[in-house]
Each structure stands twice: as C-alpha cells, then as structure tokens.
C-alpha cells in the first residue's frame, strides 16, 4: 500500500482524477436527454412521473400523439424537408466555393475566405434579424416561409462544407492534379476525374453534418418562418416547453434525435467505407469525420 504522497508523485500513475471528471461530465451531458427520451414512452400525461411503458405519445393517443396531431407531424415534415433542401443547395455551393478559393491566386479569394469564416462565427441571432429585416423591408421575389428559411440556413451552413473540403484539399496537395494534367486532361477534366473522387469523403461528411445541423436549427428558422404552418420541431418545442406539458413533445424531440442519430451513423459508416484504402497516417476516426476545425 503506497502513501497518497507517493501516489501523487508517481509519474506513471493512472489519471484517476481526469477519468473521474470525464465520466461525470459524460453522465451529466447525456443522462438528462436519456431521461427525456424515456419519458416520451410514458403511459401517463406527466413528463416527470413514470406510469409504465407505452407508445401512446407516438401514435397511440388519437388526438395528441405526434402521428395524429397535424401540427406536430407537420413540424416533423417541415424539419426534414428543410434539412434535405438546404443540404442539396449548401453542399455543392460550398464544395465549389472551397475548390475555387483554394486554387484561385490573388487578393479576392482571401477576402472571400474571410467572409465565409465570418459567416461561421457571427452570432446566429444577428444573421437571423438581418435576414428578417431584409425580407420584410426589401422587395425580394420570396416571402417569409420555407424559401426564406432555406436561404437563411444555406447562408449559415455554407462554411461547413467549405471548411471541410478545404482541409481535405490541403492534405491531398497538388501533385495528383499535376500528374493528371501531364497525362492530358484539361484542368476541369483533372478536377472531375482525380480531385472530386478524392474529395468524396469530405463531401459526404459535410452532407451529413449539414443535414444534422439544419434539423437542429432554431434561431434562423423561427424568425424566417412566417406563420405556424412552417414552424419546424425546434420552434414547436420552444413554443410549448413551458406551456402545454405532455410527453408528445418529448416524443417529437426523440423522433428528431433518432433522425439525426441515423444520419450520423450512416454517415460515419459511409465515411469509413470511403476512406478504407487510406493509410494510418490519416486519422479516419470519428474526430476527422466530425471535421475538427
């Protein structure tokens, strides 16, 4: 048995304190959410007292369940469609932007890159208010509603694929492209046949990340929603969390959680598959998938 002082001085001791902090942190960050998911299966009306397991709040209840309450399942549909549309616009826009900025020499691309990074760190509320003012005051060809929400989300998310693809371009380097061009094809041909395939993992990862981030968004989609028919799940939660407490709200949130979880698991599996040929010097772990900036 060693003395505590000896234990403290031992350079090879196991990091018990840090392990403790990490475990407590993980429990604290995940347990409340797990409890909320658990209560979405509650058989009673309460979100705090357990009355046994049921699927009542998903589809069992003929009035208030997510399946039967039109406003709730409309919110799910709106959230998922915003996710799909935004992702389809953001990813190509961001990928082309990143490739162009990476190759384009001169002053303008640096400013464009700075602009993109600013859009990444600006407090979301500021962007949302600015867009709300723009759409309500300036005569634009679209009104508040789904189009406005998509415009706002694309603006806020554009930096995600741009940053991920640029990071990937840096690790690829220029030698493959130069080799390709020595063998004949034009710059565009080399881009399409050599660089784009090598970018696939980054493009794939950013697709998943943008989708998962969009279905979680709140500030932009709320200000640009127009009326209740275009309010997605996050806004429904905000509106009713303090007002009408039934576990249907937890069920709604859990459905979204499941959607994000499925997207990320599929995404990560696909990412591993796409990068399977790569050597160990590239980190193919979940960290690189999530795009540590």
């Amino acid at each position: 048995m060693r003395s505590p002082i000896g234990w403290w001085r031992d350079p090879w001791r196991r990091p018990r304190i840090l392990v403790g902090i990490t475990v407590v942190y993980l429990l604290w960050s995940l347990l409340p959410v797990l409890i909320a998911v658990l209560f979405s299966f509650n058989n009673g009306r309460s979100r705090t007292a357990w009355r046994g397991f049921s699927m009542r709040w998903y589809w069992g209840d003929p009035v208030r369940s997510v399946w039967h309450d039109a406003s709730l399942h409309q919110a799910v549909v709106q959230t998922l469609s915003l996710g799909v549309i935004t992702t389809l616009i953001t990813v190509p826009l961001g990928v082309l932007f990143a490739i162009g900025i990476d190759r384009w020499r001169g002053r303008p691309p640096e400013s464009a890159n700075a602009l993109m990074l600013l859009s990444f760190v600006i407090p979301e509320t500021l962007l949302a208010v600015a867009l709300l003012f723009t759409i309500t005051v300036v005569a634009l060809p679209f009104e508040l509603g789904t189009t406005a929400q998509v415009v706002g989300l694309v603006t806020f998310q554009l930096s995600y694929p741009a940053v991920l693809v640029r990071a990937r371009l840096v690790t690829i380097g220029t030698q493959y492209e130069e080799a390709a061009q020595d063998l004949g094809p034009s710059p565009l041909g080399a881009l399409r046949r050599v660089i784009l395939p090598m970018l696939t993992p980054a493009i794939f990862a950013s697709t998943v990340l943008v989708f998962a981030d969009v279905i979680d968004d709140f500030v932009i989609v709320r200000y640009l929603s127009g009326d209740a028919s275009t309010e997605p799940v996050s806004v429904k939660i905000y509106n009713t969390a303090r007002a009408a407490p039934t576990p249907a709200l937890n069920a709604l949130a859990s459905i979204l959680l499941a959607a994000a979880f499925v997207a990320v698991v599929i995404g990560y599996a696909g990412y591993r598959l796409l990068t399977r040929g790569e050597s160990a010097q590239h980190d193919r772990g979940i960290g690189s998938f999530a795009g540590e900036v």
Partner: protein
Amino acid sequence: MALIASPFRRPRLRNGLWAALSLPGIAWLCLFFLAPLYVVLAIVFGTLDPLFRTPVPVWNPLDWHGGQFKYVLTHIFGASGIFGPALLRTLVYVLVASALCITIAFPVAYYVARLAGHRRGLILALLIAPFWISYMMRMLAWVNLLAVDGLVNKALGLGLFHVHVQWLSGRGIVVILGRVYGYVPYMVLPLYAGLDRLPQSTLEAARDLGANRASAFVRVVLPMCRSTIVAAVLLTCLPMLGDYFTNDLLSASPQTSMVGNLINETVNAPGEKGYAGGFVMLVLVVSLLPMLYYVRSVSRAERIAT
C-alpha cells in the same frame, strides 16, 4: 518542352476558371450575408412610417438619422437606463458561463486527447453526441428535470420530504448553468483537436529536464495551446451573446433577460424594429474584434498548412 510547360499553360485562364467556380458561393454570401447587415444599418439609421409604425429604411448614408440608435444608447446608463441591466447581465452571464465551460471542458479534452488510450474512439463519440441532439431538446430535458414536481426536486427530497423549489422562475444561476450545459460541447471539440496536436516529445522533454507536473503544464502545455483555447472560448462566447431562448426556457423572467431577449422582444414589436437593429449593431460592434481575431488565426493556420 510542351510537356514540361503543360501544367502552367495559360495561367490567367485557369485563374478565371477557379474564380468562376467560387463565384456562386461568393455571390450568395454577398447577397444574403453582407447586404442584410447593411439593411440593418439602413433601418437603424432610417425613419418610422408615422401611420403604420413600420420602419422606413434610408439607403443613402448621407441622409441617415441617428434618432433610433440614439434612443438605444441614451437608455443604457443613468436614470432612464432601462436597457443597462440586461446588457450588464449579458456580460456577466457570458463571462461566468465561459469560465465554467473552460474549467469543465479543458480536463475532459485533455484526458481524451492525451490519456484515453484505446477507449478514445468511444469517448469521442459520446463527446460528439450532444452535437446531434437538438439544443431545444437538451433544454427541454432540463425543463422537465427542474419542474416543481421534477426529478431534481425529488432527488433533493430523498423521497422523504417534499421540496418545492421553483427552479424555473428567474434564477440567474439556472440560466448560467443551462448555458454551460448547452455550450460546453462546442468547447470540448476544438480543445480536443488542439490538444491532440501537441507533440508528446516536448512534454516528455520538459519532464526530463526537471519540470514537475504543474510547471510542465503551466510553462509548456498552456503556452503551446493558447491559440486553441482562445478559439474555443470564442466559439462558445459568440453564439452565447445572441442567445435568448435559453433564458426564455429556463427562466422566462425579465430578471434574467439579456441582450438577446431585448432583440427578440423588439424585433417584431410595432415601431421598435429600429431598437432591435440598434441592439444588433451593439452586439456586432462588441463581437467584431473577436470575430476578426478568429478569422485571422484560422487563415494563418491554413497558410502554414499549405
């Protein structure tokens, strides 16, 4: 000869090609990011329609009126300072929450990046998990737990007493802890990435040369990851500045309102859009320097990488 020159033929044309590729993205950012910020300026320094109380933007900077912005500024300090407390609270809450965030996030990130060994993948997945759980869902979870008949009060009563603490009505500490809960994941990940890049050999050298654990940490680890820490703090502070929903969900009381709440309350009120724009300008001015610092440090890191 032609073969050697081929990658460099017609460089100007190729530059044009790359510019064309990034043009849609640049146009989008100019249209929907830069231009709207100017619209905010035009509304703040614009006038009000006397009949409908709707804002009338003034596009020409030479014709700008300072009336609405002046109203906001003159109501911060002094006897008519109705906005002052909320602004001060914003500063205090954001600082306290960020300090708590870094105290929690740093040890966790340090452990996962440097000491977790074969469990690293699993722990990292759990660390990233809160990213995919919607912020609203995570706040909803706490609304449930902190309700008067919620699990927190039940746990405090140990099943013997009835505890009726009203956690969700205007308690600053609940709002701060809610923010810490909400934003810590955004700090853990960048810290992890930065600590992961620290060269192990430098640390071992410090220990070999006689530094004890504490001084090796203070004199080697901290200086080497200073920019990482600054970036991580910025990435959590900046979104916190505009956050009003955490306050609304966890307190819903003017006693804990912050600048985000001021924006949210005035943005759709008739005749007060200009004030909302004024608050937006205030937050923008305060956050512009940190934002530019972040952009500069990221651009520099990119330049080193290429």
